């Protein structure tokens, strides 16, 4: 650890507020997320959500930040958010162990996920360790320490992760679709960055990013699972550094002209996507979620079942990604030589939902959709992800987990009709999508021949 890093850590530590206020019950300025969910403000700013639940003695402790994956500066640095978050987890503070070791010592798992405009750091731990991990996680990410060793280790790990994800068809197609749909802004770039991008990011830039992004005032702390409602009182206080406002969402630039993209990959893969409604348009956004569930739900989606029957080895994933504004409907499919035929099945599915469904079939699909929503919220991690995501995207009380099946999301789902869903599908899917095709690089002999 060099001296400047030591001093920096020490200075940041000195400003930590000694004790965090316990989360309080929802008030007028805080969202109502349900009778069992406590929402409050952290002492120097930021939101805390505690969602106790019976069940497995496990807790999810998550910190969510609004932060662009490419950094705050005018020049995009793809991967800097991921690198900064990893660096903090890897850096050894003046007192105690690096966060990663602290979590693994109690048998927990630590993960970091970066999206275009947000970062989530999540720990899954035995519930009896929840308080200590709330303390450790907030200490680490409310006053981030950056050491040269931690930076080096983080760069190595993130480069490796990036390398591995470059073989993941879903990641490659999603990044390419987003890159087409958005002409600028963080959504235009891959969230992880390419290994060469990461190698170019400096320690100073990474530290500057961490200092600005990882503040209590910009944080949403979510704790879910078999925990006491007062567990958040263990949170560190944060830096009262004058800037008490959270970061604003980035303003994406939507591309006006979409050109089909073709890239080399290890196998034949296709995908496409459309711009969809923002999170504020809850009815349209819910309709898009319903469509994605109806068409692509694993095992029993309308398209999924046809694909499983005809091409059982194929890959098919489709989802609506609810974002601040706009959201994105995205699908990826792969079946070696059958990839073009898969495209036809997917196209047919999107055409089908532009027609109003038979009322009985619609009713059944809606019931299944609502069950799927609840089923996808059954673990502490799923619930914490749900509250964290919707809070960061700016609509906490629209989270499907908020107030269970009596909340805004479920009421909105109940308001859907076959005609409305068809109208939303027409509105967004009638336009040309951003299309991405990945295909195997021709063998050298074929290359030579074609030249």
């Amino acid at each position, binding site marked *: 650890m060099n001296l400047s890093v030591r001093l920096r850590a020490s200075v940041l530590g000195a400003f930590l507020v000694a004790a965090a206020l316990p989360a309080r019950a929802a008030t007028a300025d805080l969202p109502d997320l349900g009778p069992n969910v406590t929402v409050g403000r952290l002492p120097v700013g930021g939101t805390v959500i505690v969602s106790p639940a019976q*069940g*497995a*003695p496990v807790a999810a402790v998550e910190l969510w930040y609004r932060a662009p994956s490419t950094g705050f500066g005018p020049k995009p640095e793809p991967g800097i958010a991921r690198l900064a978050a990893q660096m903090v987890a890897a850096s050894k503070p003046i007192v105690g162990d690096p966060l990663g070791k602290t979590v693994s010592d109690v*048998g927990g798992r630590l993960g970091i996920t970066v999206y275009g405009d947000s970062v989530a750091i999540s720990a899954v731990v*035995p519930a009896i360790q929840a308080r200590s991990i709330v303390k450790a996680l907030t200490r680490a990410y409310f006053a981030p320490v950056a050491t040269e060793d931690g930076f080096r280790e983080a760069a190595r790990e993130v480069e490796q992760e990036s390398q*591995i994800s470059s073989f993941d068809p879903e990641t490659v197609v999603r990044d390419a679709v987003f890159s087409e749909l958005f002409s600028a802004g963080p959504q235009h770039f891959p969230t992880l960055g390419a290994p060469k991008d990461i190698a170019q990011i400096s320690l100073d830039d990474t530290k500057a990013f961490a200092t600005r992004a990882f503040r209590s005032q910009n944080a949403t702390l979510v704790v879910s699972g078999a925990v006491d409602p007062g567990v958040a009182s263990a949170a560190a206080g944060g830096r009262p550094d004058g800037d008490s406002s959270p970061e604003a969402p980035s303003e994406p630039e939507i591309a006006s002209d979409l050109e089909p993209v073709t890239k080399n990959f290890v196998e034949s893969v296709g995908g496409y996507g459309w711009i969809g409604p923002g999170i504020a348009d809850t009815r349209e956004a819910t309709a898009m979620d319903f469509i994605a569930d109806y068409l692509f739900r694993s095992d029993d989606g309308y398209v999924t079942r046809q694909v499983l029957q005809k091409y059982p080895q194929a890959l098919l994933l489709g989802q609506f990604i609810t974002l601040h504004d706009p959201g994105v409907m995205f699908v990826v499919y792969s079946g070696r030589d059958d990839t073009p035929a898969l495209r036809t099945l997917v196209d047919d599915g999107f055409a089908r939902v532009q027609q109003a469904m038979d009322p009985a079939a619609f009713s059944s699909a809606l*019931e299944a959709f609502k069950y799927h929503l609840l089923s996808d919220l059954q673990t502490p991690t799923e619930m914490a992800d749900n509250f964290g995501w919707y809070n960061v995207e700016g609509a906490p009380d629209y989270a499907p987990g908020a107030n269970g099946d009596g909340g805004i999301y479920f009421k909105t789902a109940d308001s859907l009709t076959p005609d409305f869903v068809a109208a939303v599908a027409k509105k967004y899917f009638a336009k040309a999508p951003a299309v991405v095709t990945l295909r195997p690089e021709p063998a050298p002999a074929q290359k030579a021949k074609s030249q």
Partner: protein
Amino acid sequence: MRTWLGAAALLALLGAAPTPAARYPTAFATDLGVTKLIAETDADAAISGAQIFVAAGLDREPKNGNGVAALVAECITRTPVAGAALRDAVAASGGTLTYTVDGRSVHYYLEARSEHLDALVAMFAQGLAAPDFSAPTIALARQSLAARETAFETNPLSVGIQMFRRSYYATSAGQPALGSTASLALLSSSDVAAFYRANYKRGAVFSSVVGKLTPGLDEALKQVARGLPDGPVIAVAERARAIPASAPRIVAHRDVSAPWIVVGFAAPAPNSRDFGAMLVLESLLSDAFERSSATTIGFLERSVGAFYLYDSTPASLVVYVNGSQVDPALALRELLIVSHSLSTRPLGAEPLRHFKAAAEGQFLSDSVNLSDRAYLLGAFSSQGLGDDSINAALGSLERTTGGDVQRVAKNYLQRYIVALVLPRQQ
């Protein structure tokens, strides 16, 4: 190389502190008359899940009948009920139906909103009582299983584990869970019907539920059992072959980019006093060789990992080496050195605390959703861990001492079978 030095440092620490207790809600058993129910309840649960165990797993498959347990299960989920195939009818009603074939049972899992689960279990009871074994249904079921088996064959870890199981078990419990394309093709309608008749008996069924218990659910579970004929459930021998000291090696070639090694050991059953110690060894062998990382390393990035397979009797432990991440020969050598060293002295207090915490964390992380919890509740209970069986398993882990780990390493880790999955020669 740093990874292996890490393993050496671990061994240097060989020389116990109590860990706080993690506990699931207390589970209890209810005698429903015709069948038994084990439940872990949560009155506020929006979603509930039921595992319905039938003693009709791999260990009851006849010789030359591999795949019949899965084929029967697949046909049951395709049996028409309420105007659609059972699985589709359940999905259309807002639920899911899946099944898993393992060494000792086939277990069907139903999940739905808590207030709807009883209706879906009743729907399942209809399909279970009068399955469709017609030629078209069997053909579709066979096609589906064959596709899944093909996907299974592309996963080198699954292939390696299966190679070990086949070599280790002296009974059908070591056969592939879904059969193979060849074995499935040989199964006729009468084979399928005969397996069903022989094994789907009232006394072969019990259930476990996690979530909300309702009177309607009790009644539906009774209906599941009542729909099956009474009659004796024939006991099956649960045997494994003794693993020779010569460390046999089995080799297979697949379309993989790098070699994978699976080392298989015998392991204690869940009701053994050695269970907790083997969970510690599973955790230790998984983590001791892994490179350090600030965040938890995902499965694809791992170079070495371990699975304690207690779904079959006798149980086993497998340790795998991913040759795309690490030199497999070096890894194997290190693994065997560590296995031997663990048997020579007790684990010291600090490593024991660390690996017990890691083992507990791993156990809890793998047992969070309703499906896994209901499965473990039933599986552990049926293997002698009592009604509150998941907590009993955690208790076993908590009581584990350094001496226990040494004893179990000595008793189980000194003989092994090595399965090598190698890339095909170009």
